[in-house]
């Protein structure tokens, strides 16, 4: 989050399918927008409603949850439970007026590298359309902090740190 204009999208990926597909998109050198940050979960069923809401509360612009194909979950039906939870979170986002569009669940297999690049692009474009999250309040302060840290970093690296 370097500039206030830069969007940040979290991709919450299950280890067995979506994360593997993201890796494959890498080995195929498929390009997708740099806004997407992947966070790995053992299964999408570990993704709690609260994680989604907390990320939005902290100012994330969009979240994509990516799990195995329906019927193909490594943990049998984790992705189905995750979908229910994502739907619940979407309902809450609509209720509070942030809008359900900033959150989406996708299903793909570990062999679908191109599909990962596609959904990352799709989500990015959707969030571009929606604009930055209105909850990004206070980000300026954060940026100031980061800038401060960078100059501190120079000093630290030049000197010594234990």
């Amino acid at each position, binding site marked *: 989050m370097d500039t206030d204009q830069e969007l940040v999208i979290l991709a919450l990926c299950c280890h067995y399918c979506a994360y593997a597909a993201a890796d494959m998109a890498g080995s195929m050198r498929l390009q997708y927008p740099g806004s997407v940050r992947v966070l790995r*979960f053992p299964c999408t069923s*570990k993704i709690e409603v609260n994680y989604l809401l907390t990320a939005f509360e902290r100012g994330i612009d969009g979240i994509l949850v990516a799990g195995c194909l329906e019927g193909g979950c490594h943990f049998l039906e*984790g992705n189905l439970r995750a979908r229910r939870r994502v739907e619940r979170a979407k309902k809450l986002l609509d209720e509070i007026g942030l809008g359900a569009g900033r959150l989406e669940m996708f299903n793909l297999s570990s062999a679908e590298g191109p599909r990962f690049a596609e959904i990352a692009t799709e989500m990015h474009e959707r969030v571009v359309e929606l604009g930055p999250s209105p909850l990004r309040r206070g980000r300026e302060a954060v940026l100031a902090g980061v800038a401060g840290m960078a100059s501190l970093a120079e000093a*630290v690296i030049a000197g010594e740190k234990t």
Partner: protein
Amino acid sequence: MQASAAAARAMSLLAPARGTCIRTKVYPPQRDVTDEPPRIGVFICHCGSNIASVVDVEEVVRRTAVLPNVVLAEHNIYTCADDTQDTIKDKIGQYRLNRVIVASCTPRTHEAIFRDTLRDAGLNPYLLEMANIRDQCSWVHSAAPDSATRKAADLVRMAVGRAARLVPLTEDTVTVKGAALIIGGGVAGMTAALAMADQGFPVHLVEKSEALGGAARDLFRTLDGLDVQAFLAETIDRVIGHPRITVHLHSHVTQVEGHVGDFTSVITTGAKTRQVEHGVVVVATGAVEGKPTTFGYGQSPRVITQRDLSGQLARGELDLPKGATVAMLQCVEQRTADRPYCSRVCCTMAVQNALAVRERHPDARVVVLYRDMRTYGFREIAYKKARQAGVLFVRFDDDAPPGFSLGADGAIELTVRDAIVQRDLLMRPSVLVLAAPIVGQHDRQEVSDLLRIPINADGFFLEAHVKLRPVDFASEGLFLCGTAHAPKFLSETISQASAVAARAASILSRQTMPIGAQIARVDPDKCVSCMTCVHVCPYLAPIVGDDNKAQVQPTVCMGCGSCTSECPAKAITLHHYTDAQILGAIDRLLNAGPGPVGPGEGAYLEQVGVARPRWTEG
């Protein structure tokens, strides 16, 4: 599947040499880091030019070095190189690091390597965190290096947020009971039994009927002309004579308790029961030929199934008048809305029987009425042979099934609309042979309830993954083979059963088995006994214990986290994916979290007992 089967065959040859070439690696004792504040070392990899040609690695180091709890950040050309790993071990000692982050490639390939590095340095392997700045950054943003550098720094920052809250985990072990329990004494069960017994493992083979052999007792020749009965007799002899196989005839498995590596089961034979201990269970309960209820089956002795016909041919019982017509009807009561699946073997069986009829009765007219001929693979050759031998194949459409009538004199009249000439064909066959479906065993639900294994919509047992784990059940230590899984040929059953033996040996050949540390644990103080976890776990890992509180059976838990995401009291934690660790990553990414983490503070506001108010501040 075939590869595993081949492995099983090889392993039975190598059985005496098992374990003789293994060298056990010795690790230093693990340092206790509980009372230390997190001291994170971050090693950022160039991956040659894979990362460094896009990402400004030094910039990432600068941004990382200033993050809370980070005491060392440096970059290396190849972090996975042996000398760099030695450097990491040195730095762990020199800087008293107690958390290590490697920012490089994917943990899917390299996590195990770096975990081993930590173990070598006396750190618990679960204190490693990785940031994937190659596969998910430099490779996919090569056209936007600035953005890639910022993203790489973010990914490392997330890793720092998570790493600060990582805790050491210990993997428990269970002692493996080196025997197998096989349910079903057909070809699948016997093949698996022999393959395992030949590898040196004791086997309990449980058969519900009074004899071994299963459905193969009604099979006589394979398409290649091999004698099934001779093979069966030889197999049964070998099974009965094998010193390591105990055959339980007329028996049922009535109770199975325990988990992978350590099961205790009860085999009931008549009024007697016997308790056996074993490390794996193989379900080889087979399937049966579904008896048709249409086309006069059971009303006329001249309406038979393909299996009946092959028996009559084998015993020389097929008696046909001169110039007789033999009609074969495919897809009877299958590939319909009620039973949508294909029984896989009937087309080949029809072709095989048609050829045999033509051979014995050259004057007989053989007409095969079909929807699609599915003589897949090399079986196509037999189909071609049958066409050339003058067997008449008539295709009909699904929506125009043949008309059938049975006269008072027992005469069969069959009409079918030929889909190509678009005309009705009328025949009065001497014999009508039906391709009956293969259906699951009637007692499959009992087996399913006993072992808690899933049955698919077609009535067969469901494997864990059709490609990745084709002979395993989703629950560890349970395997399946043969027609209990789906209709299949004898040869396919044999290779699947051999594959099971190889997979099972990967468990049985161990003295002990580690139980993954990434499992769910219940805090009984917080548990309100609502049963939600029991309802949501697909593996039935949570049970309600003697104290009326939920507990997750560690050996059954697969570590998916389903229960932890639903527990309304937040009483369940998934080790290595705690709220603190996940929210730590998210907070650090969005620069919203608290400052440095202190000693023993990994808990992150979440673990406060139930009777006390549980404060969380927004």
